[in-house]
């Protein structure tokens, strides 16, 4: 059993990321670029090398025509990134995976990741990310933010 995580993002235009950046701009949180992705954190009994192809078998969370998939090296937010987790929705593998399973995956946690980048591609500082989470991205009544 290993823990592994992937980020799934849209390769078609992401309307939600645009709206988030306009809204955050109005709140005084400026970033050159905001990227949104879904993070899936799996308990996996299968081979690490086959995880990507196993995920690709579950169209509900990954459709190659619109998604891009990145295997994360570490299971934690990257620099310039915050993960938002909905409280009380941990062990819901079946629901999260759209009623479909992924071979070898015994548990799945889902996060929404927001990544703040400068025009140069460098990640924004932690203060920007924290303010964004506090002002808008995280509702403390039902979510928590991981930095």
């Amino acid at each position, binding site marked *: 059993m290993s823990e592994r995580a992937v980020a799934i993002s849209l*390769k*078609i*235009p992401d*309307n939600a990321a*645009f*709206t988030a950046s*306009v809204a955050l701009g109005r709140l005084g949180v400026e970033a050159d670029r905001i990227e949104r992705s879904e993070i899936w954190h799996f308990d996996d009994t299968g081979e690490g090398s086959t995880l990507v192809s196993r995920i690709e078998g579950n*169209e*509900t969370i990954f*459709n*190659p*025509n*619109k998604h891009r998939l990145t295997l994360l090296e570490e299971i934690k937010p990257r620099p310039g990134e915050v993960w938002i987790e909905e409280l009380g929705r941990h062990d819901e593998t079946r629901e999260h995976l*759209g*009623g*479909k*399973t992924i071979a070898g995956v015994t548990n799945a946690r889902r996060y929404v990741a927001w990544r703040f980048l400068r025009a140069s591609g460098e990640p924004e500082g932690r203060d920007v990310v924290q303010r964004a989470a506090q002002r808008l991205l995280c509702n403390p009544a039902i979510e928590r933010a991981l930095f």
Partner: protein
Amino acid sequence: MGSFAGAGIALRPDELRRIAENLGRDPSVVELHAFDAQWSEHCSYKSSRHLLRALPTSGPAVVLGPSEDSGILHFGEHNGERYGIVVAHESHNHPSQVVPFEGAATGIGGIVRDVVCMGAEVIAVADPLRFGRIVPGSHQRYVAQSVVDGIGAYGNAIGVPNLAGDVYFDEGFDDNCLVNVVALGLVKEAEIVHSYAPRNADGWDIVLVGKATDASGFGGASFSSVTLDAADEESNKGAVQVPDPFLKNVLMRASYRVFALLREKKITAGFKDLGAGGIMGCSAEICSAGGYGAQIDLERVNVAIDGLPPEVVAIGETQERFIWALPPEITAAVLHIYNEEFTLPQIAHNARAVVIGKMTAEKRYVMREAGNVVMDVDIDFLTGSIRDDLPHHEIATPEPSYGRPLVTGMPFGEVLERVLAHHDVASREPLYRRYDRAVRGRTVVARGEGDAGVLAPISGSKLGMAVAVAGNPRYGGIDPRLAAEHAVYESVRSVCAVGARPTGLTDCLNFGNPRKPEHYGELVAAIAGLATAAREFEMPFVSGNVSLYNESAGGKAVPASPVVACVGTLSDISCVVTMSLKQPGSVLYLIGHPQGALGGSVVLDVLGRHDRTLPRIAYEPVQRQHDFLWQAMQSRLVRSAHRVSNGGLIVAVCEMAFSTMHCGHTGIGVQIDDPWQWTHGALGELEALFNEAGGFAVEVAAKDVDAFEGLADNVDGVYEIGVTVEHPVLSLRNEAFDLSHLYDVWRRPLAEVYP
């Protein structure tokens, strides 16, 4: 396909030669893509337009026939003004197979634009869907779920109720789902906006409105006109269209505001949806339809990213865009409404209204980029009609083979349960509960409460609008002509079942590759069937759509799928009838002639039998039955009614009882008389109860029986079949079946697909 197939060009060598001859030179890259889009089946209807001329398109109810983005049917008068219902019907099959959520959502987005651009307010959508068999974990299941979520996400967000629809699950759709979408709008007939520029429009502004143009949806028109290859799905991604219902919500409201401004200033303008062929297709058509040419400057187009090739900007099918043809004196005010009042640039990245060119008296279509001419063609040659005469096989109606009555060793209760649990019969509620059906507060009969959805769309008026869809693929697989006739008949019947008068039709024809004579033959036969039924019912087609090449790489085409929507009017919504049984002690009638033909029926499917004899439609008695039902409903003699369709009469009666339970009322039961008696021994029991020939089951209160039977005096095909009783039990002969149990059996199958 020609040698350009690899470059994403579907034009054939003979078509390329015609273009080069007309231009007197080789076409530019932009021109090549422009003709590829305009001459695709999707835009040109080259292999179907001449066939479609057989359909009746005129009549007293027709305000606008199939010539623009949508047709318009007369609806009624209120406060001295005439109102029309705008009707549009389209398919989004290919995109939905590849990216089901986005494909289906943009289907709704596109059809809604077709209605808005007639100057109408969008009041309803409907969604006839055809999916493959639902096997757990299958691609078909993913498609079936994501399509429904996409339709819901889009329609719900823009605030348009989903009023009607149907769904079938058939292995013929395993590789190609069908996502047909219908949109309806309300417009005062004096305030219709046309998809062409009016007279004296030389020098008018061409204004592009909406989302910034990006690379999405490039190649969409020809994409929807080629067969689908699973291995190509990755390379099709350029054709993925990205929905933005949030932007559309704002665009619709802003456009309504522009309509008001134009009315106030008494200005006639042209307005058109950007669909297939993008900026080029739309601007060329709006100008050529008015008798003009155009000069377009691609640099003025608001783009999402820099460096897009000119052919992508010109022809790509980015969603959520329109084109206006406006007299220059009003342009600034229109731009202000979109850009300032409705703040488009803040709603989506670089969304806005912008002037991109001018209309010209000279009938040439000229496009420039950075001062260079990238396209310069005769506009009528570009948009003019082209025609492919293709060979077809005659598809004959199978000879009827009425044999002996159907006999099965299976107990009746088990046959009934299997039929109720069949995927084409089981409750659709788990699916449509994902759709907003009541937004706008005008819903009179919501989906599932009656056979047609009904709205009261005009404030202060009792006028009701009804709509229903139909098209049975089990019939299509046997006989396209009769399947088409039944699609018309069933949609008309459904509208009658709620007490409305049907007024007009719209169709979407989903077929395989027209270059295969057997598939083209199916299209030819289906159009003949539509024409027959429409003439018999005296009902015009005011709009429609053709979707060909619904075929997988393996050459497997979908079953012939003529899908029809029927629109109707109730002069007084207080006469509306729903399907739930209202009280014990009522008398149940069948209006309609039961037939022995069980071909294509659900009961044969569950018994694993095959028969190619479809029920025939006897139009004259059917018309009289419809008139009689309408009169009885006008006289308020009918408490509930449900059309006989999939599963037959017994299913119709059960569903009437289920509907009562669903409304939270104490269940009402039904006692059905021995069919041997009321069919006078003409039919076997299974035929009488499970045939799908048509007709209605209706409930008449005991006190109204004399009046009802009096009205029925000269009508053929009215049978007293039973009564309603106090407890939720279905009794037949000496057997009794618990309706609460049957309700569960009926509810469960689709709840597993749509939890």
